[in-house]
C-alpha cells in the first residue's frame, strides 16, 4: 500500500497545473461562457502538445500509458482551474470506448487524432426518461443489408456541438432495459438525418440533444462486438465517474482554500470572521468531508483498472456517492461562509459550487449511487445486470 506519487506522476501533475495556470484564467472562463464557447481550441491544442490528451491511452496507441491515477491527476487540475474543455467527453468517455472496444484499424484512425487534439469525439449514450438508469438504451439500430439505420433520441451529450464524431449506443436487440443487445456505433457529426439542439448546462458546459431520424451507418462503424457493448459501456462509465470524483476533489480543494482565505481576510465586528468559532468549525467540517472524498477518489482511481469488476463497481459507486455528498456540503457551506459574495457570478466560488452540483448529478447523484451500492452488495456485483428475458433471445 503506497500513497506516494511516482516521479512521473508528480511531473505530470505539476506540468498540467503549470500549463493551466499560465494559459487559462477565471476571466477567460467567464468570457467563454459569455460568448457561448464550448471549448478553447487553443487550450486544447496546448493540452495535446503537453501530451495530456494521450494520458489514458497505451503507448502502442500513441498514448502516455497512464491509468486511473494519471487520469485523476489531470482531472483534479482541470477541476481546480475551472476549465471547460471536453476532456471527459473526448478522452475519457468516447476515447475510452475506442481504446477498450474498437478494432485495431479503428484505433489507428481515431486515437492519434484524439491524442493530437485534431478530432473531438462525444459520447451519445444517455436518453430521455432514463433518469439515472445508465443501462437504459431505447435508440434502435435496425439492420438494412450490411448497414444499420439508427432511430432515437440522445440527451445531455456533453460537448456534442463541437464533436466531429459521436460514439452512439443503440439497441440491435432486446428491449430498452435489457443488459444485452446494445451496440456502439461511430456516427459522423455531419451525417444526414442527424439533428440536434445545443444548450448550456447550468455551470457552462455545453451539451446537445441529438435526434437520430434514420441515420444510416455502414458495418465499419460498429465499435466492438455486436450486442455486447454493455460491459464496455459500464467500464467506461466507471472510469468517467472516477474521473469526475477526481475533478470534484480538485474543486473542493480549491473551494475550501478560498473559503479559509476569505475567513481570514473578511472583517466584521472588528475582526476576521474566521475568529468566530461557529464558522471555524464549519470550515473544519468542510475539511473532513473533503478529506473523506479525497480518500474515495484515490481508491476509485486505484481500483478503476482492476480486473475484479465487482470490486471496481462497488468502489466507484461508493466514491461517487461520497463525492456527491461531500460536494453538496462543501459547496453549500462555501457559499454560506462567503455570504452575499458567494452568490455572485463574479467570484469563482459560485462557479465551483455549480460545477460540484453538476458533477453530483452526472451519471447518478449521491442518493442514487447509495442505492446502487446497497443493492449491488446484496446479490453480488453482477446484480445490476438484468438476466436476458426469453422474449428477445432470437438469434
Amino acid at each position, binding site marked *: 500500500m503506497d500513497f506516494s506519487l511516482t516521479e512521473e506522476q508528480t511531473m505530470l501533475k505539476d506540468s498540467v497545473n503549470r500549463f493551466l495556470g499560465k494559459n487559462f484564467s477565471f476571466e477567460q472562463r467567464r468570457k467563454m461562457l459569455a460568448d457561448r464557447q464550448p471549448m478553447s481550441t487553443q487550450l486544447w491544442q496546448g493540452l495535446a502538445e503537453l501530451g495530456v490528451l494521450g494520458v489514458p491511452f497505451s503507448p502502442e496507441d500513441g498514448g502516455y500509458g497512464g491509468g486511473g491515477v494519471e487520469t485523476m491527476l489531470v482531472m483534479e487540475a482541470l477541476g481546480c482551474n475551472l476549465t471547460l474543455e471536453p476532456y471527459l467527453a473526448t478522452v475519457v468517455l468516447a476515447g475510452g470506448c475506442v481504446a477498450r472496444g474498437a478494432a485495431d484499424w479503428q484505433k489507428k484512425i481515431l486515437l492519434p487524432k484524439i491524442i493530437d487534439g485534431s478530432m473531438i469525439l462525444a459520447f451519445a449514450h444517455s436518453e430521455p*426518461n432514463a*433518469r*439515472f438508469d445508465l443501462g437504459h438504451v431505447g435508440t434502435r439500430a435496425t439492420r438494412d443489408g450490411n448497414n444499420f439505420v439508427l432511430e432515437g433520441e440522445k440527451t445531455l451529450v456533453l460537448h456534442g456541438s463541437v464533436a466531429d464524431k459521436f460514439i452512439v449506443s443503440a439497441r440491435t436487440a432486446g428491449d430498452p432495459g435489457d443488459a444485452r443487445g446494445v451496440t456502439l456505433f461511430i456516427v459522423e457529426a455531419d451525417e444526414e438525418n442527424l439533428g440536434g*439542439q445545443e444548450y448550456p*448546462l*447550468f455551470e457552462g458546459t455545453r451539451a446537445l440533444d441529438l435526434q437520430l431520424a434514420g441515420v444510416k451507418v455502414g458495418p465499419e462503424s460498429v465499435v466492438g462486438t455486436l450486442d455486447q457493448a454493455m460491459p464496455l459501456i459500464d467500464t467506461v462509465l466507471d472510469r468517467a465517474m472516477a474521473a469526475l470524483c477526481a475533478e470534484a476533489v480538485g474543486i473542493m480543494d480549491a473551494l475550501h482554500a478560498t473559503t479559509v482565505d476569505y475567513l481570514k481576510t473578511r472583517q466584521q465586528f472588528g475582526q476576521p470572521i474566521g475568529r468566530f468559532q461557529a464558522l471555524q468549525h464549519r470550515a473544519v467540517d468542510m475539511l473532513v468531508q473533503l478529506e473523506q472524498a479525497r480518500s474515495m477518489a484515490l481508491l476509485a482511481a486505484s481500483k478503476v483498472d482492476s480486473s475484479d469488476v465487482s470490486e471496481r463497481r462497488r468502489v466507484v459507486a461508493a466514491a461517487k456517492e461520497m463525492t456527491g455528498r461531500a460536494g453538496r456540503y462543501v459547496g453549500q457551506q462555501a457559499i454560506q461562509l462567503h455570504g452575499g459574495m458567494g*452568490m455572485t*457570478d463574479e467570484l469563482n466560488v*459560485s462557479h465551483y459550487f455549480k460545477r460540484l452540483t453538476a458533477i453530483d448529478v452526472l451519471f447518478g447523484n449521491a442518493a442514487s449511487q447509495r442505492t446502487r451500492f446497497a443493492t449491488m452488495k446484496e446479490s453480488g456485483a453482477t446484480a445490476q445486470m438484468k438476466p436476458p428475458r426469453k422474449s428477445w433471445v432470437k438469434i
Partner: protein
Amino acid sequence: MDLNYTKEETAFRGEVREFIRGHLPGDLSRKVLEHKRLGKEDYVRWQKILFEKGWLAAGWPVEYGGTGWSAIQRFIFEDESAAAGAPRLTPFGLHMVGPVIIAFGTDHQKKQYLPRILSSEDWWCQGYSEPGSGSDLASLKTRAERKGDKYIVNGQKTWNTHGQWADMCFCLVRTSSEGKKQDGISFLLIDMHSPGITVRPIITLEGEHEVNEIWFENVEVPVQNLVGDENRGWTCAKFLLSHERTGIAGVGASKRELHYLKHIATQEQEGGKPLMEDPLFRDRVAKVEIDLMALEITCLRVASADRDGKAPGPEASILKIKGTEIQQELTELMMDAVGPYALPHLPMAWGDHWIGAHVGPDYAAPLAARYFNYRKTTIYGGSNEIQRNIIAQMVLGL
C-alpha cells in the same frame, strides 16, 4: 386553547379565497406557480388590485389605509395568497419603510409617501448593506453631510434588491463618527432619480439580475427626508428588522412549493414507478412536510402572541432559521426530483413568451436556478448565523 380556526376566521378565509379566485389574473398566478420570472409590472398589477380592495397594507393601522386585521387574519391572507399563486407583495414599501414612516415619520412624510406606497406609484428599495458592512451592519460608512437644508450623500450600498426598478430608497447613512458606531447613523429617504446615483447590476450565480450595487456621489437629499432624529437611525433600523416577523418564515409559499414538489414527483418516474412512491424520496418529502406543519404552528403561536399584545421577541428568529432551511430543502428536493434534467440552463424558458422547446419536462427548467438562488435565504435578512447569535444572547442569555 383551541387550535382550530374560529368560525369567524374560517369565514374570513372563505372571503379571501373567494376574492382571490375572482381577481387574481390567471396568467399571473401561472407564472408564480410555474416559477417563471416576474417583472415589475407583474408585482404592480396585483398590488393595484389589492389596493382597490383595501387589502394591500394588512399590517398598517386603519387610519393609514391598513386593514385592521388580526395577526391570525394576516396569516390566513398570506396563506391563501400564496396557495393561489399570487405574487408576493414587494416588502420594501409595505412592510419595511411604511411602518417606519408611520412610527417615526413626520406628518409631511406620511402624507407624501404612504399613499404612493399604497398606489404602487413609488417602488422602494433598501440601502442597508455595504461592501464592508454585512453582518456587522452598524459599521456602515456611507456618509451624509448636512449642508444647509440638504444632506450630501456619498458612499456605496450593495445587495440592493430591485433597485433597477426603484423610485425611492430608504437608506442608513452615517451622520456622525462620534461615540458608538450605532450612534451616528441616520435614516434617510432618497429619491432614486436624483443626480449622482449609479445603479450597477450584480448578476447572481443563477444568471439573473435581482440585486445591485448603488453608488452615491454627492447626492443631495432634502433634510425633510430624514426620518426620526439625526444620529438615531439605528432605532428605525432595529424597528424595521423586528417588524413583520410572522411573514418571514414563508410558510404559505413553502406549502405551495411542497404541493408543487409532490406534483413533480408524481410525474417523474423512478424504476417504472412515480418517484413519489420511492420510499427514500417519499421519506425526505415527509420529513420536510412535518417540519413545515410544525413551523406553521410555531408561526401561529408567534402571531397569536402578537394579538395578545405581546410583541414578538427575538424568539421570532427561530422562524427565520427554520423557515429558510425548509425553503432551501424544498428547492433541493425539486432539483433532485428531476434528476439529470436539472442540468440544462434555459433562462429563456422562465420568461414570459417562451414557446420554444424545453430540454426535459417543462417544470424542470427553472429548478436548478431556484436551488442556486435560494442559497440567499440563509444569508439575507441577517444570516442564519446572526439569527443564532441573536437567540443565544437575547433569549438564552449566553
